């Protein structure tokens, strides 16, 4: 849909800050975020988990209130859910006890739209989105793709000016997702969608480049708008087009630049939020770490291009980045400008036998993962060589939310089990040097 000559501003978020916990004293999720959506554009919020992109979307939908800053809809402050927007959910969020038709009618019924009007609009939306013939079916009878079509119809039927999409394709298989993207873009280009703009949250770089006019790249922990990009390629866009690839590579570079960029700073060169023991760690398994090191050691210089690697392994950024970053933290690899390269230690790990791997891994855990070192030290110092997990999770919760603390502790437990540094008893929730 071409932009009207005098683009009208639909939405504006000014200096939004979001922190969880009482009085906003908890960990920061969003910090100083500014977003403006004009009429007639598709905008993507691209970021990894922890970038606060979903929180930002919910602030815009009126479901969350920012800790500070303003969110304005057509120059009026947003005070709660409002009729100008409608949302498509990642999990579809369909009511299993309502038929397709009843699900689509949900928003209209909530507003008590008169029956005749409601029925006509529902018929139109169902026909538009390709659900004809499925009106009487229940969601559990539909495939994932058809379910998300219901999600789209339910949002479109209320004729929102701004359509909000929260990772709408990420719960679908690759083929279905691609069909859906193309269908939505075709309808948009033909001007058949009863909406004026689209705001989509995604962690899939190619999806953002494929669909958007503008991409806002969010950094993680806390989420800040790190970069803004215009995508001017004409539709339909082709993933194999060199210009498309170049845009994708550029975004990969930007999203990994930060990982390498902080090198030498007080963070010690990782992308993880927090310092020292308070560093929040992702739940990455040792198999994934070993697997990535082996894959890298297959190439002559132990180096790989991250976008190419992601495609080869069929990974998305949320899958690949935490593994790469963990390798970087433990000095098994270095990540910079969209490339990843094994270090000497990483190569030794990849070439070593299990015994050697465990030894190396333990060494690096103690040296570079402060929490692992702390647990080990506490166990060594105590006469009975035992410590309750709560002792560490409480310390972690000073730095991060409960969920992150749990993930972090889980990650370290898994790594240390592999390295055989100490034992963890799940039932007793205690660490010890030797099994009880």
């Amino acid at each position, binding site marked *: 849909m071409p932009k009207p000559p005098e683009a009208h501003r639909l939405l504006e978020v000014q200096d939004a800050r979001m922190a969880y916990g*009482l*009085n*906003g004293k908890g960990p920061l999720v969003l910090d100083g975020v500014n977003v403006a959506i004009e009429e007639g554009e598709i905008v993507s919020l691209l970021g990894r988990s922890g970038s606060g992109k979903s929180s930002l979307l*919910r602030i815009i*939908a*009126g*479901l*969350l*209130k920012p*800790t500070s800053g303003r969110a304005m809809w057509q120059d009026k402050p947003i*005070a*709660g*859910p*409002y*009729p100008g927007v*409608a*949302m498509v*959910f*990642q*999990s*579809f*969020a369909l*009511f*299993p*006890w*309502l038929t397709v038709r009843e699900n689509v009618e*949900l*928003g209209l*019924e*909530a*507003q*008590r739209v008169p029956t005749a009007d409601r029925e006509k609009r529902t018929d139109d939306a169902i026909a538009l989105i390709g659900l004809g013939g499925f009106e009487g079916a*229940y*969601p*559990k*009878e539909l495939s994932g793709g058809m*379910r998300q079509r219901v999600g789209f119809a*339910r949002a479109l039927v*209320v004729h929102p000016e701004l359509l909000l999409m929260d990772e709408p394709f990420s719960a679908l298989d690759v083929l279905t997702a691609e069909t859906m993207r193309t269908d939505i873009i075709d309808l948009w280009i033909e001007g058949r969608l009863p909406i004026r703009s689209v705001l989509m949250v995604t962690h899939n770089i190619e999806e953002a480049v494929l669909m958007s006019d503008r991409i806002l790249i969010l950094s993680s922990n806390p989420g800040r708008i790190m970069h803004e990009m215009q995508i001017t390629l004409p539709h339909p866009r082709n993933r194999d087009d060199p210009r498309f690839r170049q845009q994708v590579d550029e975004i990969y570079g930007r999203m990994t630049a930060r990982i390498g960029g902080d090198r030498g700073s007080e963070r010690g060169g990782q992308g993880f939020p927090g310092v020292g023991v308070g560093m929040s760690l992702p739940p990455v398994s040792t198999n994934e770490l070993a697997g990535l090191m082996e894959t890298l050691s297959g190439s002559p210089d132990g180096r790989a291009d991250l976008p190419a690697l992601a495609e080869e392994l069929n990974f998305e950024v949320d899958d690949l980045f935490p593994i790469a970053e963990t390798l970087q933290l433990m000095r098994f690899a270095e990540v910079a400008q969209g490339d990843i390269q094994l270090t000497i230690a990483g190569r030794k790990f990849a070439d070593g036998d299990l015994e050697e791997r465990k030894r190396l891994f333990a060494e690096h855990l103690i040296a570079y993962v402060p929490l692992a070192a702390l647990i080990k030290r506490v166990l060594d110092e105590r006469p009975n060589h035992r410590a309750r997990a709560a002792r560490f999770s409480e310390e972690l919760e000073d730095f991060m939310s409960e969920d992150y603390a749990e993930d972090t502790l889980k990650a370290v437990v898994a790594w240390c089990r592999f390295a055989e540094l100490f034992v963890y008893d799940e*039932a007793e929730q205690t660490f010890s040097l030797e099994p009880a």
Partner: protein
Amino acid sequence: MSEPVLRRAHPALRAPFNIWDLVALAIILGIFITISHGARGTVAPLQTLSQAPISLDPWRLPEYAVRTSMRMIAAMAASLAFALGYATLAAKSRHAEMVLIPLLDILQSVPVLGFLSFTVTGFMALAPGNVVGVEFASIFAVFTSQAWNMAFSFYQSLKTLPGDLEEAANAFGLTPWQKFWRLEAPYGAPSLIWNMMMSMAGGWFFVTAAEALSVGNTTVTLPGVGSYIAAANQAQDFGAVGWAVLAMGVTIVIFDQLVFRPLVAWAEKFHMELTASSDPPTSWMLDLLRRTRLMARVGRPVGAGARWLASFRILRPLPRPAALSARGERTFDVVWLAVVVGLALVAGREIFGFIARELTWADLIQAVELACLTLLRVVVLIALASVVWTPIGVWIGLHPKVAERVQPIAQFLAAFPANLFYGPAVSLIIMGKLDPNIFLSPLMILGTQWYILFNVIAGASAYPTDLRQAAQSFGVKGWQWWRTVMTPGILPYFVTGALTASGGAWNAAMLSEVASWGAHHLRAAGLGAYIADATTKGDYPRIVLGVAVMSVFVVALNRTIWRPLYALAERRYRFA
């Protein structure tokens, strides 16, 4: 083929009825007539009861069964309304929750007939000289046996609403009223209906006990199956007891077939799983209703009306959670807590004062000793029932064909009021010169042991086939099989069953530690008999003391044994 076209063009020519209409109409008219017939006696002067004493003529049983059923229906309706309201309040308001949920836990542990002892005089005062007051008292007794677990089930559903659906409801601007009917009530329906079924089963036991009331000088006998049983026991008439068993069985089957099976089959659509279940529950009654044209005609406007009501914009859309001012919030918490604790202290002092006026510490010690005896009985009986029913349940559960047939029978038996068998049991004890302290005990668990059986059956049926095959292929047998393969796998189910059975046994203590058959009165030492005696004498301080001690025992048992065991089973032994 012109005929179909003609027919389609003139819908009026279509027969408005089909054969299913006639069947459904017959059933529904039958229900109406029965209800109006049964309702006639409920509002009448109290003397009518003594003028028409319970007759042991089996032909009077259908009428008695209708009266009893109507009490059940009234109690169920009240329980349902209570459950929806109480749970919603507790789930929506944090401050209400702080009080209501612990309160529910206590209410659940108060023996059902204990409520009856307190309330019957109050209810009779509500409508002096009229049957309706006594009817209310017996309905209230049944209500107290049904409402708590239903409220708790709905509360738990409200607390575990799927986040994405809640968000969708808010995002599309549903008001709290609309959200309740579109999201909360449907989401809670399957578990609520299941709990209604369980409550109904327990309710039959108490409705029969609550019809022949005797508190102090007040003795009332309401026409119903329960009074019929009491009269039969009094007359030592085995034949009449047999007829009562038959009438009860038929009534339970009718309720199951006409009410609960259709409800369960209908509620299947409210299950959250997004995959169709391979073996959905079915009901001929529901199919019948769905097949009838008249029902479809009546049903459509009714459905549309319900939908119209549910979509009223009552209450404003939920405002976003206001930015919390930590200090204000904390101050309010403290004030609230102080008010609640203060009220509790005042109430506690009142109760203590009431008891202490006539009773001494020796009475308390006596009550605790008797409670220990009852506890011993419960523990031994649960252990015995577990040893007997677990292997049988596992065997049945592993044979789907058998399980299919046995499961409904076990549920039926659980619904069966065990006091039907008191008479015969007592005469056996007397004839055999047995010790009532031991041989009255099995009556306690007669009705509740089935919970262990059908939960174990459910657990064994749900046991993953691949694990069983793995055990088989590694040659795991005998004791090792029980220890490592089966017991951990069914533990969550077993604990649920044993917990229910234990709660039921405590409740049954008041009925099973004393029993009469004609002129013979048997009595076993225990807290149940203590409360029952106090009730007969109208000795309120002792009733209060006995009920309080029993509640404390049940709550303590739940907290120290069942809850940790349940948590462990859920965490460790539940197949994800």
